[in-house]
């Protein structure tokens, strides 16, 4: 073992015999010597130190590079996640918009159907009313004509009365049906 009483040379030679080599900047503090044995040992220490530092430097640089790459990958990943989230939000917004448009289209179609139905009912009512008015008017004219020329009016009288009754009943029936349809439509809405 190296003792505090040993000279530097003795200490160095003891270390050399045990194959222990000085590491770090301490080697740089050792002055140049002409003693071949000590000189060779110091040179060996320096070479080993440089080789070890080179090795460590390469590994550190590699780790540093990998860390940088990981950081970059992490940034890219984060950007992708944000992009995906944005796309998802955009898709959801588009879906919502499409649903709204669909609902609006369904509503428009429904309104159109109702309007068509209303227009049809309106037409039916008009035609029915014209027919009722026409038949009523024709029968009345015929009845007045028969009365005015003085011929037997028994048949036409009962016919006019029956026809008028039927027309009146049918009129109420039509009005009732229309009111019923209108009520049912309003209720379904």
């Amino acid at each position, binding site marked *: 073992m190296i003792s505090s009483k040993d000279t530097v040379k003795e200490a160095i030679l003891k270390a050399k015999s045990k194959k222990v080599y000085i590491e*770090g*900047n301490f080697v*740089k*503090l050792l002055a140049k010597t002409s003693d071949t044995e000590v000189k060779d040992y110091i040179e060996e220490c320096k070479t080993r130190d440089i080789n070890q*530092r*080179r090795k460590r*430097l390469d590994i550190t640089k590699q780790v*540093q590079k990998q*860390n940088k790459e990981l950081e970059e990958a992490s940034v890219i990943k984060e950007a992708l996640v944000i992009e995906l989230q944005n796309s998802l939000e955009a898709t959801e917004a588009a879906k919502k918009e499409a649903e709204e448009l669909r609902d609006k289209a369904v509503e428009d179609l429904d309104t159109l159907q109702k309007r068509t139905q209303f227009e049809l009912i309106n037409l039916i009512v008009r035609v029915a009313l014209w027919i009722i008015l026409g038949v009523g008017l024709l029968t009345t004219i015929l009845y007045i004509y028969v009365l005015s020329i003085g011929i037997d009016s028994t048949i036409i009288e009962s016919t006019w009365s029956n026809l008028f009754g039927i027309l009146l009943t049918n009129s109420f029936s039509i009005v009732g049906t229309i009111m019923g349809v209108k009520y049912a439509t309003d209720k379904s809405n």
Partner: protein
Amino acid sequence: MIDTLMLIDDENLFHLVFEDACSMLDIALSIEALDSSDEANAKFKKWFPDDPDHERPQCVFVDLNIVGSSYDGIEMIRKINHEYGNGCVIGIISSSSDPEEIEKAKAVGAQFWIIKSDDIEPRLQEFHRDYEGYVNKTAPFKIYR
């Protein structure tokens, strides 16, 4: 060879790279690597002005952006140069090469700007060749690319 050198950089891995590169190139005997400018500021504050003769680093390398610190590299240089005495060779070591920042560093008294890269050794070697000029204040501001 520089006896005492201080590195202020938040990246611990770079401390190892810097120490090994400096040792291999025989640039410095002793390197003190600090993580933050606050830590460096506390040390300089303690050394100066109460004890202007206190042993101080002969050369200081400061990173431009020191994450988790109160001051960036430029402010650190300004403090060391103007508040604690302008006695050491000081400059920036950063991956940035922003001309605006370089001008700011020059204005506060930085003597050099070393751009960090995977291959830092040639730049440090070049810096080492110019070092005496920085000590004598005869070398102009230089960017090591």
